[in-house]
């Protein structure tokens, strides 16, 4: 008989699980952590300064020009939203498929979703050029008629999709944390810690009736998040696909964007998990090599889906017989921005092929490097889609090159500062692994002791 691999290593008892996971919240972090936090915080401050300049002076500081009206802001928005999708996939879709291995990584993946969506949300607002008028995006009764928003516009669908996604993700994440926050409350010695976590836990008591409703709601949220996450990136792709522009106006965009989002998101989960495993050795018992291997398999599979989409776009451009469509694709691969296309192809379809080898899938330095390449490649994918479709219009008089300025790079790199500050604070302030979800699976794969 084939034996099940244990999901949690080290023969843990229920008490061990609580102690291990709560230890992060209850002890002072070491010097390494503060160094990481200080670095991220410095990057965040730099980001704020860059944003201040852009908002204060105007969008002219960034690289957008006449044909290329969508630049770094939109590229980076799509990049971060995509990152978020893997978190929902792990927490909701794998939950519905009863994948028990998801339990120990779901919380952190879900946190990544929340922070990635927060980071992403700033970019379209910045892109409007007048962020102080961002509330115009919402349909509210106003003194201009009232003049309502245009519900036929994909850009407005995006406002609804991203804000619903952010709300439901935060609620899902928080509901999952309630029992664990109660655990921290009950362990607290310090009265203020007890009060703060007590308030956050909403006074959870854990009776069988409570669990009965709680489990049902958790499943319902998973069921609602699954179509939601697919809709969000489909709608992001509509931002492009609904415009009748060669290179954007493609029916393959929604599935292609969703596959790309899962691909980049899993790469980010691997990046973060490698860091977490290195910084918190006790978590290696919970986030095991099997977890990393499963995620690497998903990275390779979705990477090939994305590669298939690249190929099929070229095929359809040729098969359509439309000279405009054909021009855009030849220009995409061999035009002035061709370098970005080949970075994308190398990072997204060639490099992940190393995961055919089991040794690579289970080798931490390899997967870390590959995950970074995938992140780079997926940022360039959005660069390719946005810039190469825009920079050569139907009339050569409208042709121009897109070059990023200091402020483009500042906004791009600075956004990582925001993301990592949030993530680092989360990992020491909230239960980073779901305590209540891991406890029922600690017996999986152990020498089974049968109870009467």
């Amino acid at each position: 008989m084939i034996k099940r691999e244990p999901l949690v290593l080290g023969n843990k008892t229920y008490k061990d699980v609580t102690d291990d996971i709560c230890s992060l919240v209850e002890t002072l972090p070491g010097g390494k952590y503060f160094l990481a936090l200080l670095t991220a915080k410095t990057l965040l401050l730099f980001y704020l300064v860059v944003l201040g300049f852009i908002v204060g002076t105007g969008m002219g500081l960034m690289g957008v020009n006449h044909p290329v009206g969508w630049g770094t802001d939109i590229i980076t928005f799509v990049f971060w939203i995509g990152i978020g999708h893997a978190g929902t996939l792990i927490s909701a879709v794998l939950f519905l498929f009863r994948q028990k291995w998801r339990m120990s990584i779901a919380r952190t993946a879900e946190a990544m979703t929340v922070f990635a969506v927060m980071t992403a949300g700033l970019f379209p607002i910045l892109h409007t050029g007048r962020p102080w008028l961002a509330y115009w995006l919402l349909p509210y009764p106003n003194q201009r008629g009232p003049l309502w928003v245009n519900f036929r516009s994909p850009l407005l669908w995006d406002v609804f999709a991203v804000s619903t996604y952010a709300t439901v993700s935060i609620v899902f994440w928080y509901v999952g944390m309630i029992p664990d926050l109660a655990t921290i409350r009950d362990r607290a010695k310090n009265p203020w810690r007890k009060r703060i976590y007590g308030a956050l836990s909403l006074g959870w008591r854990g009776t069988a009736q409570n669990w009965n409703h709680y489990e049902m709601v958790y499943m319902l949220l998973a069921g609602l998040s699954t179509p939601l996450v697919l809709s969000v990136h489909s709608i992001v792709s509509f931002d492009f696909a609904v415009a009748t522009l060669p290179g954007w106006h493609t029916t393959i965009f929604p599935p292609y964007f969703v596959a790309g989002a899962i691909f980049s998101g899993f790469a980010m989960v691997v990046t973060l998990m490698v860091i977490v495993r290195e910084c918190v050795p006790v978590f290696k018992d919970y986030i095991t090599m099997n977890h990393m291997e499963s995620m690497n398999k998903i990275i390779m599979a979705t990477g090939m889906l994305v590669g298939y989409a690249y190929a099929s776009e070229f095929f359809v451009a040729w098969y359509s017989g439309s000279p405009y469509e054909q021009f855009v694709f030849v220009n995409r691969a061999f035009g002035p921005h061709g370098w970005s296309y080949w970075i994308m192809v190398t990072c997204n379809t060639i490099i992940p092929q190393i995961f055919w080898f089991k040794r690579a899938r289970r080798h931490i330095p390899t997967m870390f490097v590959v995950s970074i390449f995938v992140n780079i490649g997926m940022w360039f994918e959005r660069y390719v889609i946005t810039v190469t479709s825009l920079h050569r219009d139907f009339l050569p008089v409208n042709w121009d090159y897109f070059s990023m300025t200091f402020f483009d790079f500042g906004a791009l790199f600075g956004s990582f500062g925001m993301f990592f500050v949030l993530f680092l604070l989360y990992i020491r302030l909230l239960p980073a692994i779901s305590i209540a979800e891991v406890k029922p699976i600690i017996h999986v794969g152990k020498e089974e002791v049968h109870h009467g």
Partner: protein
Amino acid sequence: MDKLFTTLENLLRPKGKKGLAGIWEDDHKMVEAARKTREMGVKKFDAISPFPLHGIDEAMGIPRSWIPWVTFIFGLTGCAFGTWFTWWTSAVDWPLIIAGKPFWSLPAFVPIIFECTILFAALSSVGVMIGLCRMPTIDPHTIDPDLTCHKFAIFVPEDEPGFDQAKLESLFKENGATDVRQTEF
């Protein structure tokens, strides 16, 4: 400052019921004891655990949660609201011709209607769950702080029909309870 907070918390804390609690360190034995408690004729009692227990609903006779109905009804409400709102703003309140499309262009409104459906369904389900669990509560009574860690408990309130202190105590102990105590919950 600390004293003030403690007084406030005592004032706001919900009234607990007096009763008998048994504490277990083995979840399977606790589920078994819960089944026997119910067979003894006690209908309403609490079983407290750090994680959802397999088989506890059957043992205690807890019916399937009815929250899915809330999700369904509020999902329909969200769907209806989204449909009405896009129609009313685009075709009634201030109709504008945009890209030559009809005022009431339903296919273009589907994404908005969909997002409203999900949002209403998700938030209402969570709201009802929080209400049913009688949350938020300030500093509720706990029988033992380890009940959110590695211990399991059954609590039977005194005023419950069928409450028999001596019988319950022996039932708990026979079924592996490590501790039985008079408490408030």
